């Protein structure tokens, strides 16, 4: 941690907190029934998006999933546009066409997110291929879950990226569940990262709740990619606090065990890093509070912007299907 510049540490903290507070806002307002979109909350996994994206440049590419908010925000996606999109408004980052599972911000390299598990993995490889062909030194990243690692397309993508030594980083966020199905019900092993070895690429397992560990591992991977030394697979072990979809917790429904959740809440990536920052003297309590206030202000502004934005017009229904020449 010591070797990371102070402003980077603060940046990492802000990235995580912005995601956390943004989604806590969703939890607050969801019951108003105005946010009509299936939200897959990222709370508990913030260190992964933050630790990885802090190593990326604006022009680098990120491809996300149904659980998209964290990746979008960490890559620098516009918060107002995201909130407005969740509200299905015309001002949304996807003009209201996408909703929570389909967010985009091309200006900062958020290339989109898919609701088809695994679907974004080959897309990231394709963007990396483009970068290589265009000699642009841009790095592509795909975030995906342990469930996506069940999909054949995950292997097809790794194989191709390794074969062509493409500048892509595969970030598997292993939160041990696909919807309510535990990894052990879907995979005979618990070593997703080891598949990298088969494809002769580096594969690392990281504590996904330790933003510094994620940052360091990603730094290595991104450097490799950018300098033409090929892809890396990162398995970040973490946990989602809420149910698979929606703002509520799923323990009472019997989807997961309370003890399991407790264990991970103790390892909360945000609080944990906060403590380290205070202990290390990087930040004082007062500064932390100011950061929190600033972020809450930003979130509230985004909320007002989204909620008050106009709905799309019905004529937009048939727009952007394609372009006819």
């Amino acid at each position, binding site marked *: 941690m010591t070797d990371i510049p102070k402003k980077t540490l603060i940046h990492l903290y802000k990235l995580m907190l912005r995601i956390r507070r943004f989604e806590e806002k969703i939890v607050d307002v969801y019951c108003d029934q105005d946010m*009509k979109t299936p939200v897959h909350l990222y709370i508990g996994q913030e260190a992964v998006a933050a630790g990885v994206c802090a190593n990326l440049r604006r022009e680098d590419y990120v491809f996300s999933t149904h659980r998209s908010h964290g990746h979008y925000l960490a890559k620098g996606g516009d918060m107002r546009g995201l909130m407005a999109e969740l509200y*299905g408004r015309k001002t949304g980052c996807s003009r*209201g*066409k996408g*909703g929570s*599972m389909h967010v985009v911000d091309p200006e900062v390299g958020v290339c989109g997110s898919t*609701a088809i598990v695994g679907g974004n993995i080959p897309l990231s490889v394709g963007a990396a291929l483009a970068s290589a062909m265009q000699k642009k030194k841009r790095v592509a990243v795909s975030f995906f879950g342990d469930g996506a690692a069940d999909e054949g397309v995950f292997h097809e993508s790794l194989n191709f990226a390794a074969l062509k030594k493409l500048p892509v980083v595969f970030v598997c966020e292993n939160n041990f569940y696909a919807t309510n199905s535990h990894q052990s*019900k879907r995979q005979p092993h618990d070593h997703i990262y080891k598949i990298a070895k088969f494809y002769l690429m580096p594969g690392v397992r990281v504590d996904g709740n330790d933003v510094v560990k994620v940052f360091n591992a990603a730094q290595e991977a991104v450097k490799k990619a950018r300098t033409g030394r090929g892809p890396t697979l990162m398995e970040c072990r973490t946990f989602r606090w809420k149910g698979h979809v929606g703002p509520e917790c799923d323990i009472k429904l019997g989807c997961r065990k309370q003890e399991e959740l407790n264990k991970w809440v103790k390892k909360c990536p945000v609080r944990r890093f906060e403590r380290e920052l205070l202990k290390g003297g990087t930040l004082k309590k007062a500064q932390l509070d100011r950061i929190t206030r600033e972020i809450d202000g930003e979130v509230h502004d985004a909320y007002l912007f989204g909620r008050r934005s106009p709905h799309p017009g*019905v004529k937009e*229904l048939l727009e952007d299907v394609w372009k006819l020449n």
Partner: protein
Amino acid sequence: MPWTKLQADAAHREHSLPGRRRGRRVTYREAIREAQDQAMNIDPSVFIMGEGVDDPGGIFGTTLNLDKTYGRDRVMDLPLAENGFTGIAIGAAIAGMKPILVHMRMDFLLLSMDQIVNHAAKWRYMFGGRQTVPITIRSIIGRGWGSAAQHSQSLHGLFTHIPGLKVVMPSSAYDVKGLLLASIADEDPVMFIEHRWLYDQEDHVPENMYTIAIGKGRVVRKGTDMTILAISHMVPEALRAAKILEEEHGIRCEIIDPRTLRPLDEKIILKSVKKTGRLLIADYGWNTGGVAAQIASIIAEKAFNDLNAPIRRICLPDAPTPGAPVLEEAFYPGAEDIIRLVRRMLKGQDR
């Protein structure tokens, strides 16, 4: 085979039913669950595979707790590997099992098109009838709450184009039980398509096992002025429309539910059109190249001289499903659209 008699009874049973009015009422959801329960109960070769079939959601309740009764070996959760596990289900069927494969969203079938279309649909034919693939593939069409483009597609049009596949799309609790049992009993792959907005609909559903012949439509409502062919969730919409049309405009619509899209019960449609001279098709898929187009083309050809007006279609607009509530609202057709179109079709003959 415990199934042969059930199938044999199909046709007659449906009519000899203790008058569809009496008997216990059960939801579409529960009817699906009961059919699977009874099938697994009488035939050890029947089993269920699907992502989440054994979880607390139980596929919107349609498989709920079946794992407790039959164990997780017969109510089997799966890795997210759609093409692979579809092939696995097909392989099991080739080896004598009767798998019921369940997809919570029809969109995911696009990952297994190779196994469904290149393998299941052709396996019997390619081998001159020496192999069969008795598999039932349940898939559910969603709608609403911003499901958006990848979580709401009605792709029955794609499967209806494929020789070797049977495509079933029931709209009532009574039909869904009888047709699901018929599909499980069937020797061939059946695409069994449900609509989530039908799940809470109740109907009189016999407790005993019964099958409805695949390929037989049903006259849902009698009428003389106009034939409305309605599919899946468009059936309740058409019923709402027909009621208003009769009460407020004196227009009597005959509503037909084909129930099976392939093979299609052409006779029942032609018979009705002969009487009414007009056909409106209300489908739940995209307009271009969909099932409505298919049916319209057949009827326009075979009932050329019976038609007093062009066949009209109400389908989904030719666009992916939008996420925004206001756009979603505009995207899905309903009773109002049917009423408007029926009246336009009958313009001139005021009543």
